[in-house]
Protein backbone atom coordinates (compact mmCIF):
# COMPACT_ATOMS: atom_id res chain seq x y z
CA UNK A 1 0.00 0.00 0.00
CA UNK A 2 2.87 2.34 0.72
CA UNK A 3 4.23 1.73 -2.74
CA UNK A 4 0.80 2.53 -4.13
CA UNK A 5 0.77 5.79 -2.21
CA UNK A 6 4.21 6.75 -3.57
CA UNK A 7 3.15 5.80 -7.07
CA UNK A 8 0.00 7.83 -6.66
CA UNK A 9 2.03 10.81 -5.45
CA UNK A 10 4.44 10.45 -8.36
CA UNK A 11 1.58 10.31 -10.86
CA UNK A 12 0.04 13.30 -9.17
CA UNK A 13 3.32 15.20 -9.60
CA UNK A 14 3.58 14.10 -13.21
CA UNK A 15 0.01 15.17 -13.87
CA UNK A 16 0.50 18.54 -12.21
CA UNK A 17 3.81 19.12 -13.98
CA UNK A 18 2.49 18.32 -17.41
CA UNK A 19 -0.82 20.12 -17.09
CA UNK A 20 -0.53 22.70 -14.31
CA UNK A 21 -3.61 24.61 -13.36
CA UNK A 22 -3.80 27.97 -11.67
CA UNK A 23 -4.77 26.45 -8.37
CA UNK A 24 -2.25 23.64 -8.26
CA UNK A 25 1.49 24.30 -8.15
CA UNK A 26 3.76 21.30 -8.81
CA UNK A 27 5.46 20.03 -5.70
CA UNK A 28 7.65 17.01 -5.12
CA UNK A 29 6.13 14.52 -2.69
CA UNK A 30 7.82 14.22 0.68
CA UNK A 31 7.47 11.66 3.45
CA UNK A 32 4.61 13.53 5.09
CA UNK A 33 2.62 14.03 1.87
CA UNK A 34 3.06 10.33 1.12
CA UNK A 35 1.86 9.50 4.64
CA UNK A 36 -1.10 11.80 4.24
CA UNK A 37 -1.99 10.02 0.99
CA UNK A 38 -1.61 6.66 2.71
CA UNK A 39 -3.35 7.56 5.99
CA UNK A 40 -5.90 9.94 4.58
CA UNK A 41 -8.05 11.32 7.39
CA UNK A 42 -5.70 10.34 10.19
CA UNK A 43 -5.59 13.32 12.63
CA UNK A 44 -1.90 12.85 13.51
CA UNK A 45 -0.89 12.71 9.88
CA UNK A 46 -3.15 15.67 9.19
CA UNK A 47 -1.45 17.60 11.96
CA UNK A 48 1.98 16.63 10.58
CA UNK A 49 0.89 17.70 7.11
CA UNK A 50 -0.20 21.06 8.45
CA UNK A 51 3.11 21.57 10.27
CA UNK A 52 5.34 19.85 7.72
CA UNK A 53 7.50 22.96 7.23
CA UNK A 54 8.19 23.13 10.94
CA UNK A 55 8.83 19.37 11.03
CA UNK A 56 11.45 19.61 8.29
CA UNK A 57 12.91 22.73 9.90
CA UNK A 58 13.23 20.86 13.17
CA UNK A 59 14.83 17.92 11.38
CA UNK A 60 17.46 20.25 9.89
CA UNK A 61 17.95 21.91 13.28
CA UNK A 62 18.29 18.51 14.94
CA UNK A 63 20.87 17.46 12.33
CA UNK A 64 22.86 20.62 12.97
CA UNK A 65 22.66 20.08 16.73
CA UNK A 66 23.87 16.49 16.41
CA UNK A 67 26.83 17.49 14.21
CA UNK A 68 27.66 20.40 16.54
CA UNK A 69 27.41 18.15 19.60
CA UNK A 70 29.51 15.43 18.00
CA UNK A 71 32.37 17.56 16.69
CA UNK A 72 32.14 20.96 18.37
CA UNK A 73 31.43 20.28 22.03
CA UNK A 74 34.99 19.43 23.05
CA UNK A 75 37.21 20.42 20.16
CA UNK A 76 40.80 19.24 20.24
CA UNK A 77 43.66 21.59 19.36
CA UNK A 78 44.75 19.11 16.68
CA UNK A 79 41.56 18.56 14.66
CA UNK A 80 40.51 15.18 13.30
CA UNK A 81 37.73 13.92 11.09
CA UNK A 82 34.56 15.99 11.07
CA UNK A 83 36.09 18.66 13.28
CA UNK A 84 38.23 19.71 10.31
CA UNK A 85 35.14 20.39 8.21
CA UNK A 86 33.37 22.15 11.05
CA UNK A 87 36.41 24.29 11.77
CA UNK A 88 36.69 25.33 8.13
CA UNK A 89 33.04 26.37 8.18
CA UNK A 90 33.28 28.19 11.50
CA UNK A 91 36.49 29.98 10.55
CA UNK A 92 35.15 30.99 7.14
CA UNK A 93 31.90 32.29 8.60
CA UNK A 94 33.74 34.14 11.35
CA UNK A 95 36.06 35.77 8.80
CA UNK A 96 33.09 36.61 6.60
CA UNK A 97 31.18 38.25 9.46
CA UNK A 98 34.23 40.16 10.66
CA UNK A 99 34.90 41.42 7.13
CA UNK A 100 31.37 42.82 6.96
CA UNK A 101 30.88 44.07 10.51
CA UNK A 102 34.47 44.60 11.65
CA UNK A 103 36.25 43.28 14.73
CA UNK A 104 33.04 43.71 16.74
CA UNK A 105 31.48 41.13 14.45
CA UNK A 106 32.86 38.24 16.48
CA UNK A 107 30.00 38.72 18.94
CA UNK A 108 27.48 38.22 16.12
CA UNK A 109 29.22 35.28 14.44
CA UNK A 110 27.11 32.63 16.23
CA UNK A 111 23.87 34.28 15.13
CA UNK A 112 24.89 34.92 11.51
CA UNK A 113 26.64 31.56 11.28
CA UNK A 114 23.63 29.65 12.56
CA UNK A 115 21.40 31.62 10.20
CA UNK A 116 23.61 30.72 7.25
CA UNK A 117 23.92 27.03 8.14
CA UNK A 118 20.22 26.68 8.90
CA UNK A 119 19.12 28.32 5.63
CA UNK A 120 21.76 26.49 3.60
CA UNK A 121 20.87 23.08 4.98
CA UNK A 122 17.15 23.81 4.68
CA UNK A 123 17.63 24.82 1.04
CA UNK A 124 19.64 21.71 0.28
CA UNK A 125 17.30 19.37 2.14
CA UNK A 126 14.85 19.77 -0.77
CA UNK A 127 17.26 17.74 -2.90
CA UNK A 128 16.98 14.71 -0.62
CA UNK A 129 14.27 12.27 -1.66
CA UNK A 130 11.35 12.40 0.77
CA UNK A 131 12.45 15.73 2.25
CA UNK A 132 11.31 19.26 1.67
CA UNK A 133 12.99 22.68 1.76
CA UNK A 134 11.28 24.40 4.64
CA UNK A 135 12.65 27.70 3.30
CA UNK A 136 10.44 27.29 0.23
CA UNK A 137 7.59 28.40 2.49
CA UNK A 138 7.16 32.04 3.49
CA UNK A 139 6.16 31.10 7.03
CA UNK A 140 9.71 29.87 7.62
CA UNK A 141 11.46 32.78 5.94
CA UNK A 142 9.22 35.40 7.55
CA UNK A 143 9.88 33.73 10.89
CA UNK A 144 13.60 34.09 10.22
CA UNK A 145 13.07 37.72 9.18
CA UNK A 146 11.24 38.34 12.43
CA UNK A 147 14.17 36.93 14.39
CA UNK A 148 16.65 39.03 12.40
CA UNK A 149 14.54 42.14 12.97
CA UNK A 150 14.36 41.51 16.73
CA UNK A 151 18.07 40.74 16.88
CA UNK A 152 19.03 43.90 14.99
CA UNK A 153 16.80 46.04 17.21
CA UNK A 154 18.24 44.38 20.30
CA UNK A 155 21.75 45.13 19.06
CA UNK A 156 20.75 48.74 18.52
CA UNK A 157 19.19 49.05 21.97
CA UNK A 158 22.28 47.45 23.49
CA UNK A 159 24.54 49.83 21.61
CA UNK A 160 22.61 53.09 22.06
CA UNK A 161 20.58 52.48 25.20
CA UNK A 162 16.76 52.55 25.34
CA UNK A 163 16.37 56.37 25.45
CA UNK A 164 18.72 57.07 22.58
CA UNK A 165 17.17 54.20 20.63
CA UNK A 166 13.67 55.64 21.00
CA UNK A 167 15.01 59.13 20.25
CA UNK A 168 16.69 57.91 17.11
CA UNK A 169 13.62 55.95 15.99
CA UNK A 170 11.44 59.04 16.51
CA UNK A 171 13.66 61.14 14.27
CA UNK A 172 15.64 62.78 17.09
CA UNK A 173 13.05 65.52 17.82
CA UNK A 174 14.31 68.79 19.44
CA UNK A 175 12.17 71.41 21.22
CA UNK A 176 14.83 74.15 21.49
CA UNK A 177 13.45 76.05 18.50
CA UNK A 178 10.02 76.61 20.12
CA UNK A 179 11.36 77.91 23.43
CA UNK A 180 10.99 81.52 22.35
CA UNK A 181 7.43 81.09 21.01
CA UNK A 182 4.36 82.20 22.89
CA UNK A 183 2.46 79.72 25.05
CA UNK A 184 -0.55 79.27 22.72
CA UNK A 185 1.79 78.54 19.83
CA UNK A 186 3.73 76.12 22.01
CA UNK A 187 0.51 74.36 22.98
CA UNK A 188 -0.30 74.05 19.31
CA UNK A 189 3.10 72.90 18.09
CA UNK A 190 3.95 70.39 20.83
CA UNK A 191 1.04 68.00 20.03
CA UNK A 192 1.84 68.27 16.32
CA UNK A 193 5.48 67.45 17.00
CA UNK A 194 4.41 64.57 19.23
CA UNK A 195 2.19 63.19 16.49
CA UNK A 196 5.02 63.51 13.95
CA UNK A 197 7.33 61.70 16.39
CA UNK A 198 4.91 58.80 16.70
CA UNK A 199 4.45 58.62 12.93
CA UNK A 200 8.20 58.77 12.37
CA UNK A 201 8.72 56.07 14.99
CA UNK A 202 6.20 53.81 13.28
CA UNK A 203 7.65 54.55 9.85
CA UNK A 204 11.16 53.84 11.07
CA UNK A 205 9.95 50.63 12.70
CA UNK A 206 8.20 49.54 9.52
CA UNK A 207 11.30 50.51 7.51
CA UNK A 208 13.46 48.40 9.77
CA UNK A 209 11.02 45.50 9.56
CA UNK A 210 10.72 45.71 5.78
CA UNK A 211 14.46 45.13 5.32
CA UNK A 212 14.49 41.55 6.64
CA UNK A 213 11.01 40.94 5.19
CA UNK A 214 12.35 41.75 1.71
CA UNK A 215 15.14 39.28 2.37
CA UNK A 216 12.67 36.63 3.45
CA UNK A 217 10.54 37.14 0.34
CA UNK A 218 13.58 36.87 -1.91
CA UNK A 219 14.75 33.71 -0.16
CA UNK A 220 11.30 32.13 0.01
CA UNK A 221 10.40 32.72 -3.63
CA UNK A 222 13.82 31.66 -4.93
CA UNK A 223 13.80 28.37 -3.07
CA UNK A 224 10.16 27.86 -3.96
CA UNK A 225 11.02 28.43 -7.63
CA UNK A 226 13.86 25.92 -7.39
CA UNK A 227 11.54 23.33 -5.87
CA UNK A 228 8.90 23.98 -8.51
CA UNK A 229 11.52 23.64 -11.24
CA UNK A 230 12.67 20.34 -9.80
CA UNK A 231 9.10 19.11 -9.47
CA UNK A 232 8.30 20.10 -13.04
CA UNK A 233 11.42 18.36 -14.35
CA UNK A 234 10.69 15.23 -12.29
CA UNK A 235 7.12 15.27 -13.62
CA UNK A 236 8.36 15.67 -17.17
CA UNK A 237 10.82 12.84 -16.64
CA UNK A 238 8.03 10.57 -15.40
CA UNK A 239 5.73 11.60 -18.25
CA UNK A 240 8.48 11.15 -20.83
CA UNK A 241 9.40 7.75 -19.41
CA UNK A 242 5.89 6.32 -19.55
CA UNK A 243 6.60 4.77 -22.92
CA UNK A 244 9.65 2.90 -21.68
CA UNK A 245 8.24 2.33 -18.17
CA UNK A 246 11.27 4.02 -16.67
CA UNK A 247 11.32 7.62 -15.38
CA UNK A 248 13.99 9.81 -16.97
CA UNK A 249 16.09 11.76 -14.44
CA UNK A 250 15.86 15.08 -16.28
CA UNK A 251 16.06 17.00 -13.00
CA UNK A 252 19.69 15.91 -12.55
CA UNK A 253 20.76 18.55 -15.08
CA UNK A 254 19.58 21.38 -12.83
CA UNK A 255 20.81 19.88 -9.55
CA UNK A 256 24.21 21.66 -9.80
CA UNK A 257 22.38 24.93 -10.38
CA UNK A 258 20.12 24.27 -7.40
CA UNK A 259 23.21 23.59 -5.28
CA UNK A 260 24.75 26.89 -6.31
CA UNK A 261 21.56 28.92 -5.91
CA UNK A 262 20.84 27.38 -2.51
CA UNK A 263 24.28 28.42 -1.30
CA UNK A 264 24.00 31.87 -2.84
CA UNK A 265 20.59 32.47 -1.28
CA UNK A 266 21.86 31.47 2.15
CA UNK A 267 24.88 33.72 1.66
CA UNK A 268 22.77 36.67 0.54
CA UNK A 269 20.44 36.37 3.52
CA UNK A 270 23.38 36.12 5.93
CA UNK A 271 25.33 38.90 4.22
CA UNK A 272 22.45 41.37 4.26
CA UNK A 273 21.61 40.48 7.86
CA UNK A 274 25.27 41.19 8.71
CA UNK A 275 25.01 44.51 6.89
CA UNK A 276 21.90 45.45 8.90
CA UNK A 277 23.73 44.62 12.11
CA UNK A 278 26.78 46.59 10.94
CA UNK A 279 24.57 49.61 10.27
CA UNK A 280 23.27 49.40 13.83
CA UNK A 281 26.74 49.51 15.35
CA UNK A 282 28.45 52.85 16.15
CA UNK A 283 30.95 52.63 13.31
CA UNK A 284 28.09 51.77 10.94
CA UNK A 285 26.58 55.19 11.54
CA UNK A 286 29.48 56.81 9.69
CA UNK A 287 29.01 54.83 6.46
Amino acid at each position, binding site marked *: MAVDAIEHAAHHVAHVAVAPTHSE*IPELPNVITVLSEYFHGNPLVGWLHR*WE*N*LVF*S*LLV*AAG*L*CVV*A*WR*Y*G*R*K*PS*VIPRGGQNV*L*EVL*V*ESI*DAFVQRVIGPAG*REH*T*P*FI*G*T*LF*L*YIWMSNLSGLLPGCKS*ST*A*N*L*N*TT*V*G*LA*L*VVFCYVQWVRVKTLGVIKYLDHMAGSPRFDDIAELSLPLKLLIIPIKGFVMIVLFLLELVGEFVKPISLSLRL*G*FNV*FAEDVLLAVLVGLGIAAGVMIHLPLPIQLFVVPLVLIFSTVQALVFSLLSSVYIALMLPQGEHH
Partner: protein
Amino acid sequence: MPPILQLDLQQILSQAISFILLVIILRKVAWRPLLAMLDQRRARIEDELRQIAQSKSELAQLQNDYAKRLAKIEDEARTKIQQAMLEGKRLAIELQEQARAQGYEIMTKAKDTVELELAKAKVTLRDQVAAMTMDAVERMLRRKLDATADRQLVDDVLKELEEPRARTSDARSDR
Protein backbone atom coordinates in the same frame (compact mmCIF):
# COMPACT_ATOMS: atom_id res chain seq x y z
CA MET B 1 -4.25 31.65 -2.90
CA PRO B 2 -1.11 29.57 -3.57
CA PRO B 3 0.19 27.81 -0.45
CA ILE B 4 3.38 29.85 -0.46
CA LEU B 5 1.43 33.03 0.14
CA GLN B 6 -0.69 31.58 2.95
CA LEU B 7 0.91 33.13 6.00
CA ASP B 8 0.15 31.58 9.35
CA LEU B 9 1.14 33.50 12.47
CA GLN B 10 1.42 30.32 14.52
CA GLN B 11 3.81 28.80 12.04
CA ILE B 12 5.83 32.02 11.78
CA LEU B 13 6.19 32.22 15.54
CA SER B 14 7.00 28.51 15.80
CA GLN B 15 9.70 28.88 13.17
CA ALA B 16 11.08 31.96 14.94
CA ILE B 17 11.13 30.24 18.33
CA SER B 18 12.69 27.07 16.95
CA PHE B 19 15.39 29.13 15.24
CA ILE B 20 16.10 31.11 18.43
CA LEU B 21 16.45 27.82 20.31
CA LEU B 22 18.77 26.53 17.60
CA VAL B 23 20.92 29.67 17.89
CA ILE B 24 21.11 29.28 21.67
CA ILE B 25 22.02 25.60 21.46
CA LEU B 26 24.59 25.97 18.70
CA ARG B 27 26.07 29.02 20.41
CA LYS B 28 26.69 26.98 23.54
CA VAL B 29 27.57 23.64 21.96
CA ALA B 30 29.56 24.64 18.89
CA TRP B 31 30.28 28.30 18.28
CA ARG B 32 31.76 29.27 21.61
CA PRO B 33 34.00 26.21 22.07
CA LEU B 34 35.12 26.23 18.45
CA LEU B 35 35.79 29.97 18.31
CA ALA B 36 37.60 29.85 21.64
CA MET B 37 39.68 26.93 20.44
CA LEU B 38 40.44 28.69 17.15
CA ASP B 39 41.49 31.81 19.07
CA GLN B 40 43.64 29.68 21.34
CA ARG B 41 45.23 27.94 18.37
CA ARG B 42 45.77 31.23 16.57
CA ALA B 43 47.40 32.70 19.68
CA ARG B 44 49.57 29.62 20.01
CA ILE B 45 50.61 29.74 16.36
CA GLU B 46 51.34 33.46 16.60
CA ASP B 47 53.36 32.85 19.74
CA GLU B 48 55.30 30.08 18.06
CA LEU B 49 55.86 32.22 14.99
CA ARG B 50 57.09 35.02 17.22
CA GLN B 51 59.44 32.59 18.95
CA ILE B 52 60.66 31.33 15.58
CA ALA B 53 61.25 34.90 14.43
CA GLN B 54 63.12 35.62 17.66
CA SER B 55 65.17 32.45 17.27
CA LYS B 56 65.93 33.40 13.70
CA SER B 57 67.04 36.83 14.83
CA GLU B 58 69.23 35.29 17.54
CA LEU B 59 70.62 32.81 15.06
CA ALA B 60 71.42 35.60 12.62
CA GLN B 61 73.10 37.52 15.45
CA LEU B 62 75.09 34.42 16.39
CA GLN B 63 76.07 33.85 12.79
CA ASN B 64 77.15 37.45 12.55
CA ASP B 65 79.19 37.17 15.74
CA TYR B 66 80.63 33.89 14.55
CA ALA B 67 81.60 35.40 11.21
CA LYS B 68 83.19 38.34 12.98
CA ARG B 69 85.09 36.09 15.34
CA LEU B 70 86.14 33.87 12.48
CA ALA B 71 87.39 36.89 10.57
CA LYS B 72 89.23 38.08 13.65
CA ILE B 73 90.78 34.64 14.16
CA GLU B 74 91.81 34.53 10.52
CA ASP B 75 93.38 37.97 10.85
CA GLU B 76 95.22 36.89 13.97
CA ALA B 77 96.37 33.69 12.30
CA ARG B 78 97.52 35.61 9.24
CA THR B 79 99.40 38.08 11.43
CA LYS B 80 100.99 35.25 13.39
CA ILE B 81 101.97 33.44 10.20
CA GLN B 82 103.50 36.63 8.87
CA GLN B 83 105.32 37.16 12.15
CA ALA B 84 106.56 33.55 12.06
CA MET B 85 107.68 33.97 8.47
CA LEU B 86 109.54 37.16 9.34
CA GLU B 87 111.06 35.47 12.36
CA GLY B 88 112.04 32.52 10.19
CA LYS B 89 113.65 34.81 7.65
CA ARG B 90 115.41 36.66 10.37
CA LEU B 91 116.67 33.40 11.86
CA ALA B 92 117.75 32.15 8.44
CA ILE B 93 119.70 35.33 7.82
CA GLU B 94 121.22 35.09 11.27
CA LEU B 95 122.17 31.47 10.70
CA GLN B 96 123.61 32.30 7.31
CA GLU B 97 125.67 35.05 8.86
CA GLN B 98 126.77 32.75 11.64
CA ALA B 99 127.70 30.07 9.13
CA ARG B 100 129.52 32.58 7.02
CA ALA B 101 131.42 33.87 10.06
CA GLN B 102 132.25 30.32 11.13
CA GLY B 103 133.42 29.44 7.63
CA TYR B 104 135.52 32.52 7.49
CA GLU B 105 136.96 31.66 10.85
CA ILE B 106 137.69 28.09 9.75
CA MET B 107 139.28 29.33 6.56
CA THR B 108 141.36 31.82 8.49
CA LYS B 109 142.43 29.11 10.88
CA ALA B 110 143.26 26.77 8.00
CA LYS B 111 145.23 29.48 6.28
CA ASP B 112 147.11 30.16 9.49
CA THR B 113 147.75 26.42 9.90
CA VAL B 114 148.96 26.14 6.30
CA GLU B 115 151.20 29.12 6.75
CA LEU B 116 152.50 27.71 9.97
CA GLU B 117 153.10 24.31 8.38
CA LEU B 118 154.77 26.02 5.43
CA ALA B 119 156.97 27.96 7.76
CA LYS B 120 157.75 24.77 9.62
CA ALA B 121 158.53 22.97 6.36
CA LYS B 122 160.71 25.82 5.23
CA VAL B 123 162.59 25.71 8.48
CA THR B 124 162.95 21.95 8.25
CA LEU B 125 164.06 22.22 4.64
CA ARG B 126 166.51 24.91 5.50
CA ASP B 127 167.83 22.78 8.34
CA GLN B 128 168.11 19.79 6.09
CA VAL B 129 169.78 21.79 3.29
CA ALA B 130 172.10 23.28 5.85
CA ALA B 131 172.86 19.85 7.26
CA MET B 132 173.45 18.44 3.82
CA THR B 133 175.56 21.39 2.89
CA MET B 134 177.49 20.93 6.06
CA ASP B 135 177.77 17.27 5.29
CA ALA B 136 178.98 17.98 1.79
CA VAL B 137 181.38 20.59 2.99
CA GLU B 138 182.65 18.18 5.60
CA ARG B 139 183.26 15.55 3.04
CA MET B 140 184.99 18.08 0.78
CA LEU B 141 187.18 19.19 3.50
CA ARG B 142 187.96 15.66 4.51
CA ARG B 143 189.17 14.62 1.09
CA LYS B 144 190.84 17.86 -0.16
CA LEU B 145 190.93 16.71 -3.59
CA ASP B 146 191.03 18.48 -6.92
CA ALA B 147 188.26 20.21 -8.69
CA THR B 148 187.22 17.08 -10.48
CA ALA B 149 187.06 15.25 -7.25
CA ASP B 150 185.05 18.08 -5.70
CA ARG B 151 182.79 17.95 -8.57
CA GLN B 152 182.49 14.23 -8.15
CA LEU B 153 181.65 14.67 -4.51
CA VAL B 154 178.99 17.17 -5.19
CA ASP B 155 177.49 14.90 -7.82
CA ASP B 156 177.52 12.01 -5.40
CA VAL B 157 175.77 14.06 -2.82
CA LEU B 158 173.26 15.11 -5.38
CA LYS B 159 172.80 11.51 -6.47
CA GLU B 160 172.26 10.45 -2.92
CA LEU B 161 169.77 13.14 -2.58
CA GLU B 162 167.97 12.11 -5.77
CA GLU B 163 167.99 8.39 -5.15
CA PRO B 164 165.43 8.34 -2.38
CA ARG B 165 163.19 10.60 -4.50
CA ALA B 166 163.53 8.27 -7.51
CA ARG B 167 162.75 5.33 -5.32
CA THR B 168 159.73 7.03 -4.01
CA SER B 169 158.46 7.84 -7.55
CA ASP B 170 159.14 4.21 -8.64
CA ALA B 171 157.23 2.92 -5.73
CA ARG B 172 154.35 5.25 -6.58
CA SER B 173 154.35 4.11 -10.25
CA ASP B 174 154.45 0.44 -9.14
CA ARG B 175 151.48 1.06 -6.97
